[in-house]
């Protein structure tokens, strides 16, 4: 009986959306950076790896026309991350990303890879309640508030700001600045049907090269349903929407007109949990966007992750 309870606590009790304002502000079109994935709750410690793929078109001409400057860009990130619970209500998370950036223009490709920006987040659980909903159902709610600090460990190369053909300043491994974010996560679940809502506001600072990425807001809502199989495997498909919006960047105090904007994506994913292991993935596709005055167009993104509760 005790064992079953523990299992429930680890996996079944609450699947919580963990939004990590980690890494890759840049590859998210300079707008979003938030990866949204659903993690099993964990008792003390959790460690995981995450792979993300983003691609976009940059330097589009007027009305989205392709010009000879139009460039395909892809951003792949492999992240090692960990989470620690401190007491019942505090949680600390950290992430170390490794990125591979690639640009292709007129058949010529250039790429760079390396460590990205390390980030550390702290969360506080403001609400964690379980109550009866009707006669046969359980209502579970939780609310977390947190803050993150992102350190300039990823290389920022001012030359890649691309003065020759001004482009959004995306082709970087890191922002070169210490950045902060405020995160909120709310999860409500009636028995096996849940809704996750997240919000994140990222405040960027000016880097050593006097470039400052615009502040960014992102928010998501995802419905999920947990199917429990007899062999203690949980399968939780999820679907929702993700909204990102960014202010314009500044360069030596000058506003960068071709930056910022907003993006709405539909997301579809599935999470699997078996004992102490969780495995999941999601796919995001733009439903509406206006990035960098139309000079940038985001394409589909996807993410895969594997996590183990220790």
């Amino acid at each position: 009986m005790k064992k079953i309870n523990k299992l429930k606590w680890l996996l079944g009790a609450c699947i919580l959306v963990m939004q990590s304002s980690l890494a890759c502000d840049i590859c998210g079109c300079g707008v979003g950076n938030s990866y949204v994935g659903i993690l099993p709750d964990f008792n003390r410690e959790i460690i995981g790896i995450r792979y993300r793929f983003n691609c976009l078109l940059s330097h589009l001409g007027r009305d989205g026309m392709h010009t000879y400057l139009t460039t395909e860009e892809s951003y792949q990130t492999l992240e090692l991350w960990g989470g620690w619970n401190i007491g019942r209500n505090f949680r600390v998370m950290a992430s170390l990303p490794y990125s591979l950036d690639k640009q292709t223009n007129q058949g010529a490709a250039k790429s760079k890879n390396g460590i990205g920006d390390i980030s550390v987040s702290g969360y506080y659980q403001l609400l964690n309640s379980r109550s009866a909903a009707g006669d046969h159902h359980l209502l579970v709610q939780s609310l977390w508030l947190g803050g993150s600090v992102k350190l300039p460990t990823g290389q920022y190369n001012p030359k890649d700001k691309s003065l020759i053909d001004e482009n959004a300043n995306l082709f970087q491994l890191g922002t070169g600045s210490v950045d902060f974010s405020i995160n909120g996560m709310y999860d409500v679940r009636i028995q096996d049907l849940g809704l996750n809502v997240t919000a994140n506001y990222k405040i960027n600072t000016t880097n050593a090269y006097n470039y400052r990425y615009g502040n960014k807001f992102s928010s998501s809502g995802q419905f999920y349903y947990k199917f429990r199989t007899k062999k203690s495997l949980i399968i939780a498909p999820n679907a929702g929407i993700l909204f990102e919006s960014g202010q314009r960047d500044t360069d030596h105090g000058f506003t960068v007109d071709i930056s910022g904007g907003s993006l709405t994506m539909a997301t579809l994913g599935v999470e699997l949990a078996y004992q102490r292991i969780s495995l999941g993935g999601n796919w995001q596709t733009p439903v509406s966007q206006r990035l960098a005055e139309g000079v940038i167009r985001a394409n589909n993104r996807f993410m895969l992750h594997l996590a183990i509760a220790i």
Partner: protein
Amino acid sequence: MKIFSVIICFIALFFISCSKDNPVSYNPSVSGPLSVEFDNIAGSDDLQLISGMYTDVNGEHFSVSKLKYYVSNFSLVRSDGTVYTVPQDSCYFLIDESDESTHEPTLHVPEGEYRAINFILGVDSLHSTLDKNLRPGILNPDTHDDMYFGVDSGYVFFNLEGNSNSSPTGTFEYHLGGYGGSTVPVINNIKKISLDLTQRGMPQVKRGKETNIHLMIDVLKLFDGDMLISISGDPEIGFEQRSVDASNNLPAMIDHDHTEN
């Protein structure tokens, strides 16, 4: 208590991070460089003289051997709506695809942010009729005779030549000009170009900083305007009525692609 300290931390964080950057201040009595790049293209390709093969709207394949044009009389509209007119002694340029040094004429304009640029594609009637001795350099008809018709017809302000199997002779040439004439009234093909810069990035001019307005000039649009021009139908256009149709297609060739600040 814990909650209270968490909230305090957030508020502190917010204020620390929100220290505003100093906005840029402009001194309108000081000038800074502003280059205007005339980047000749053919659809989604960069234009390559001789070697590049392109296809016009009529499906005719062609290459370009010469592309030269005059641009002049620049003025810029500040973000507050006031206009700065570039002085006459420094606002005539001959863009020659074969000479890279001519692709980005540099203007010197007061510091500030500009929302529109105006110029003339061609040479104005005053400078078309001025005493030849007062037209030195690129405006000298004797040293630039491929860009000049004569007294009443003036400059060939837009010159496109190339090769195509669609032409009976294997070549085509469009010599567009006409300022209205001085002794007898004739055609005027000079085009005033006004480009809004707010959609694709406004130039922010400051001394000690380089700013470039990057324009793209698409040769394919010469064939594909209000009037269709075909190489087979019009292998040569000179100082004639048909040049009015071709010239009417010129303004749409020019687009503001982006600004490098």
